[in-house]
């Protein structure tokens, strides 16, 4: 009723405006009759009722549940082996090491833990070390680094950023790499030995490289003065972080994996998001398609126990894992998809019920009322 009368008015106005004397000449302030200005843009107006959203719930349910199952199966196919070598338990071989060791001790303590794999690990096996209760995400800890020093900037090497305080200068010499992150670098050494049924220990070759992000290794981290130069000379005038047993240029013998581009350092410098985390330590490469990378059998993990975690009730673990397209073993997403899908489906049923019982009233009988 209203709408039509308004239209009439508009037409009327136009008509008289154009035909009236001087109507063309007078520039009126009449607003433009455009869809935008009159707020009449064509629009989709969804109405959320049980009836209208019903399909969405069922579709979501029907899509999510298969995805979830797929994810769950994929995750379950991943083989993972985890061993805690913290040495809290007296029975643990590393108990002694864990008791005696602190940051200040210089002598190293070794222990070895035997374990056995029930199933062979087929493809490439990733060897992680895991830490618990280690708050690498602490606000002041996260900040305590100098990225340009790590990028090989010579100025920053000699004069590290203030952010590194109080791990910036030691005995009037700049620390390289400076900061709390580098200072607390994980420095246990882990070695794997396969125990043949006949008792011989076969060392398993562990790849040191390829564990860091390519961009980190090649862009973010660089040794000062380029890769070719003599690291000892370059780092002259700097000092090692307080907790480190040896300076940064002695981290590895391979010049491609030494200094700031040492991949263990790079991996460590990527601070973990959560207090329980794992970091890639080594990769055990698949030899060929015939023999599994890690066959079933007994193994020994030899540990040079340097890293103290007792002060913060931390745990240290060694993890062996294969990975799939979706990463490591984690059934969560699969379960999540399945449960969200089921919930959707269930709610869809509820809505169907509602729609069946009340929906008709709304759509037809309620409005005329």
């Amino acid at each position, binding site marked *: 009723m209203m709408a039509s009368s308004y239209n009439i008015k508009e037409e009327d106005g136009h008509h008289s405006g154009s035909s009236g004397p001087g109507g063309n000449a007078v520039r009126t302030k*009449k*607003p433009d009759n455009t869809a935008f200005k009159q707020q009449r*843009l064509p629009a989709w107006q969804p109405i959320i009722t049980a009836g209208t959203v019903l399909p969405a719930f069922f579709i979501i349910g029907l899509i999510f549940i298969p995805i979830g199952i797929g994810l769950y199966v994929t995750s379950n196919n991943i083989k993972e082996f985890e061993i805690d070598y913290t040495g809290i338990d007296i029975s643990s071989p590393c108990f002694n090491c864990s008791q005696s060791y602190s940051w200040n001790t210089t002598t190293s303590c070794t222990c070895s833990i035997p374990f056995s794999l029930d199933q062979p690990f087929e493809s490439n096996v990733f060897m992680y070390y895991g830490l618990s209760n280690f708050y690498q995400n602490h606000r002041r800890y996260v900040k305590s680094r100098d990225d340009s020093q790590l990028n090989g900037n010579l100025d920053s090497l000699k004069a590290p950023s203030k952010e590194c305080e109080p791990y910036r200068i030691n005995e009037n010499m700049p620390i390289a790499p400076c900061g709390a992150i580098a200072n607390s670098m994980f420095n246990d050494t882990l070695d794997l030995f396969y125990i043949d049924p006949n008792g011989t220990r076969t060392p398993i070759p562990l790849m040191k490289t390829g564990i860091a992000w390519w*961009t980190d290794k090649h862009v973010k981290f660089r040794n000062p003065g380029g890769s070719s130069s003599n690291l000892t000379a370059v780092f002259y005038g700097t000092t090692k972080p307080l907790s480190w047993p040896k300076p940064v240029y002695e981290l590895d013998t391979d010049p491609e994996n030494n200094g700031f581009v040492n991949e263990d350092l790079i991996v460590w410098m990527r601070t973990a*998001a*959560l207090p329980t985390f794992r970091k890639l330590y080594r990769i055990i490469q698949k030899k060929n398609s015939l023999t599994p990378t890690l066959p079933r059998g007994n193994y020994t993990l030899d540990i040079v126990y340097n890293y103290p975690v007792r002060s913060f009730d931390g745990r240290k673990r060694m993890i062996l894992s294969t990975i799939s397209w979706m990463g490591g073993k984690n059934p969560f997403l699969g379960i999540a998809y399945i449960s969200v899908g089921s919930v959707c489906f269930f709610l869809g049923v509820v809505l169907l019920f509602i729609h069946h019982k009340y929906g008709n009233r709304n759509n037809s009988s*309620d409005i005329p009322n």
Partner: protein
Amino acid sequence: MAREIGEPGVAKSSTTKKHKRRKSKKEIKTRTVHANILYDQAKGGDNPNRHYANNKIKTTKYTLLSFIPKNLFEQFHRFANVYFVFIALLNFVPVVNAFQPELALAPVVFILSVTAIKDLWEDYRRHRSDKEINHMDCLVYSRSERQYLECYWKEVCVGDFIRLRCNEILPADVLLLSSSDPDRLCHIETATLDGETNLKQRQVVRSFIDLDTEFDPLKYNSVIECEKPNNDLNRFRGYITHRNGRRDGLYKENLLLRGCTIRNTEEAVGIVIYAGHETKAMLNNSGPRYKRSKLERQMNVDVFWCVVILLVMCLFSAIGHGLWMFQYGDKRPVFDVLSPEGTDLSPVVSAIYLFLTMIIVFQVLIPISLFVSIEIVKICQVYFIHQDADLYDEETDSHLQCRALNITEDLGQMQYIFSDKTGTLTENKMVFRRCIVAGVEYSHDANARRLAMYQEVDSEEDEGLSRGGTLPRKESLTSQHSGGKAVLRSQSTKSHRRTGSRAEAKRASILSKHTAFSSPMEKDITPDPQLRDKVNDCGSQMEFMRFHNQLLSQISPDLQDVFDFFIALTICNTVVVSSPNQPRQKVRRFELKSPVKTIEDFIKRFTPSRLTSASSSSSSTSLATNRSSSHRACSSLLSSPSAESTLARLEEERGATPGIRGALGTTPACPHAGGSVAGGSDEGELRYEAESPDEAALVYAARAYKCSLVGRLADQVTIELPHVGRLSFELLHTLAFDSTRKRMSVVVRNPLTEQITVYTKGADSVIMDLIRPPAADDSKGKRQRKILFKTQNYLNLYGMDGLRTLCIAKRVLSKEQYASWLRRHLEAETAIQGREELLFESALRLETDLHLLGATGIEDRLQDGVPETIAALRRAGLQIWVLTGDKQETAINIAYACKLLDPEEEIITLNADSQEACAVLLDESLHYIQAKFLCSSSADPCAAGVFQPDYATLQFHAPPTSSGTAGPVVVHRLGLVIDGRTLAYALDKSLEDKFLAVARSCRSVLCCRSTPLQKSMVVKLVRDKLKVMTLAIGDGANDVSMIQVADVGVGISGQEGMQAVMASDFALPRFQYLQKLLLVHGHWCYSRLANMILYFFYKNAMFVALIFWYQFYCGFSGSAMIDQWYLIFFNLMFSAFPQLITGTLDKDVSADTLQELPQLYMNGQNSEEYKPYMFWMNMIDAFYQSLVCFFIPYFAYADSDVDLFTWGTPITTLALLTILLHLGIETKTWTWMNWASIAFSIVLFFMVAMCYNASCPTCYSPSNPYWTMQRLLGDPLFYLMCVITPIAALLPRYFYRACQGSLFPSPVQVGRQLDKVPLGLRRHLVNQRTAHRTPLYPLGPPFLKGCSSKITDPYSSNPKQKAQAASPICLKSMEMKDTPGSSKNPVNHLEHHDELSLPSSEIIWLTSTPLMPQMECVQLISPPSGASPGVTYQKNQESLDCPQQNILKQTCGERLSDSPDSQ
């Protein structure tokens, strides 16, 4: 300081001395202006004007230098800005800093600079316009050049002489010293000041009037003393002191205001009094007011809650951090980094530091961008309202103006509307309908038919409503009226359509664009044949008599009255005549004289010898030169002022009055034949411009009877009468209309009788009070009484008809009376202080002992669509109060016509004479309401139906019982009518609660006869006491205070000037647009903003909560997994646009449906979109969603080698997606802009993230997110999370919405569903719904069917009728207590009332308006004081038996003492 007149004998020196002394004393209060040319050589030295502001205006706020500090200073007045700057600065403290300090400044700087740029732009525009204005040209007299030179406006100084030419705009406030106009007048158009398009006359200062030669600035050496600059446009006083010691008063008529345009005047010269910023126009220029909307107030409460939540979260984190630190004891873990100084922090200290850090991290919770976003959205909303073609009025080419930018959403939350009547509900286009002359009613049937025709043309398409209209009166006075009720009943539903057809109006508007000319409908009046005959009779008789040299006073009194009546209609006004060919060109000036301004003048004019010659020659000359000559005709017929004239001489003259009279007898007789013929041809082309439309209506009415106003000068009015021809009346005084006196008068000398006659025109209530009581018992007295009585009766009926009544009266003054009055009047006129009061008193002295000539009924037609609009607004749950200055009956009838009052509802009328009576009445009505509606709400509402009588007339006679003021909150079907006097009592502190209790339980309230102040008091009372949102709508200056007080003020940009518009927040061209403005735009603005604000709170809380959850996994260290760039720009960039688009464009229900279902408006009234609990619901939802967004990535990446920011970036992404999808759920209409904005936001986020993550491998410490996003995009896990998280997060909300939509849909949702229904079906459904009155709202106000109760009141005692004194004067205060519903004639208690009263049946049908036969009516009338308390409660059956006793009440006793003129 009353200025003494007539003391020219005082020595010049003493005067100056005295003057100087005075000046020094009141230096503070006045300003002295000298001519600048006297001081030209010593410019700047001793020029006394040097301290006054010059004419350069500068409205800019800033200069180039001061911009930054001043703008910052102003912005920091906003608390939020201070808060954010504080946070940003906190970042510079190393121990607590969370972000890079520079980065943390970014949002604050961004917000500040956006505002600053906006301010700068506005200021620049102001600067541009200032510059333009300052560089306009005007002519200023230069001493050195001895001529007027072109100057820039900015160079004009106080004391300069400037010459103004036609159509020039005044550069400053100028005192008019000379004009090329022969009358020494200057016409100005003040449209820019007050919007009134009619011309106003300004007059040369008196001392310069008689200057025959051109004004020479060099000869000027007077000193002007006047008020300090002030902003009162209608006041200016001061005096000018000449070298010779003579002093003259200065009035506002002498002052030309800056900004006005000179019209019709070749040239004028004046001296600048106020310049630049001190001009009245500039002082009136106050910027837009800042109002805070209800929504914003509510929002601020929730902002406060956000602060509380923030503090709680920070405190929680701080304590957590303290405990976390404490558990490690002395063993410091490696990751607990020492402070930069290397000192170990104790848990407590670190907790305190952390508290501050957390405030920085969580700052986003307080939505920094919310304030800016709201402003942007509001500007867009204003833009759209402005652009709405439906709110555009073709006729006036104007559309809605939003003058307040920040209260658009208040429009959606109104609960009470206070409306003015005249010009707001009605058109303020006055149409003469009928009149009474000498007690005889002339009903103007043809005129009524004509009006009905106009109506039909326009209401063709509107068949649904019966078109009784103003039915032409077909029967004669004596015919019987049978079955009146039915007919009248149907008339009540007549639709008042807009005057004339649209095409016709358009034509009119083209003809008279931007002028105050009346529409043809107002002009073409069909005369009543009877009256026309009488007029012709009268004219011819008079002609005959004059021809035979008979005394005119011998005409029969009836005819005399008719004659006087038309003369009064024609001349008792301030209408300006112009000819159409040259609009604004005065037709002709016949004579050159000003009104009597001095005693000398008086004497001069009334000296017999001079007068005879002067006037006779003048009028004949005038006719000769009538149309041909444009030069001054008979310019200075009067000799120069006689120097010797003194008051003493006046005294002498008095003795000679009879002589004068005799001499006056030979008056100029115009050669009528030629005059009238010529006039006849002219007549059609004359145009009248009137300040009030009533005046124009009357003049047009008179013209229909060939009594036309031909010309008006300051001192003379020329009219043309049938048979008599042109007559020039010497206009001695005009006592302008004011709202206190409610009347205006002119004092003229009648050229025919030479009598000094006062014609007064005014509201019937006041005029009737001033009528000279008829002499005792001779036939003349009897006749007089009869006339009075009849007139009063008709007036009452007019009132019931909804006509505006005006009484016309005259008074013949004897020369002595006039002289004595004149003396005091002149004193008053020249007084500087208290002049208004003195003039007022002077007017009161003149306007007494009047002789009633007749009365007129003018119809003020309802505006287009008013009843529909009111009905719609009422269905929208708005309480509509009408506050009008009109008389009660008129108001009630207009109220019926516009459906404000419903025939089915009862009406409580409150008329009290004293505070006590008022209190009692209020108590009684409360009782009544309670009793009545207790009854009706109890079991048997049908009993009411059974008993539902035609008239239930209840009369309360105030018993002293008072009851509690526990007001009923339910709105009943009751109407309350209260008059201004009672309102004054009711608004008293002690009674206001009761008044409100009564008023709020009534569905409609009508306050009649209320003053502007009362209007604003009512609004204020309701607003403050009931805590409701009020809207005031009005069109005139009398509504300004009301408009300013209300939460939202709406001005009608109609015909009564711009004052209301200037004071308003929104200006509408028509009342009916209010419907769309409120129901559609108000609703939209409200729901959009409410949803946007809630969404904002949700969004920020959701985002911040993510970080809060993370604190549990980072030792409450204040660490954030979200990169600080994302954290800071999330609100400003990534999530900002979609919500702005939705906040601007979203329509929950279409405009059509909103108008068809006004009930949907209650959504806003009840704040349904944004209730306090909704904030918390949103918060809970936000926390839930953030939990999902946090823990899905948490578990997905649990115990993995993910690093902090590779894990945080997906969370950010997920949060963004969730937030956008959430907005999607809340968005009701999806236009391409919504899609685009959401897509844009997502793309923007990824683009920014990619660029940011690729830009620098070593920067952005500490996150250093190099290549993070790129790597994530290659991770299937990321996509899997992106799919599941938003769905899981929004599942509950979506499910809830779906259930709500199905199980308990809100009215708005039902409305939205209606949108989907095809148009035809929808209309059908809506009509059905409205027809059945199905409340959309389950909780809507119950419409209780009125039931007349059977309360038996213990106090029922006899009404004190008989005790009432019946004096003839009582007539004037006679209040017709009759309700339209009752068919009794109003009989007042005159002595001879039985013999004079007309048979009731005769009167009934006289009222053409709808009577309300079924209406129940409660009348609360206080008895005269001293009456014993009692209540009369009568059933209508009884009342029918004794109608006259019950229905008529007189409350005259106290009223008498109130009339101001009873000295």
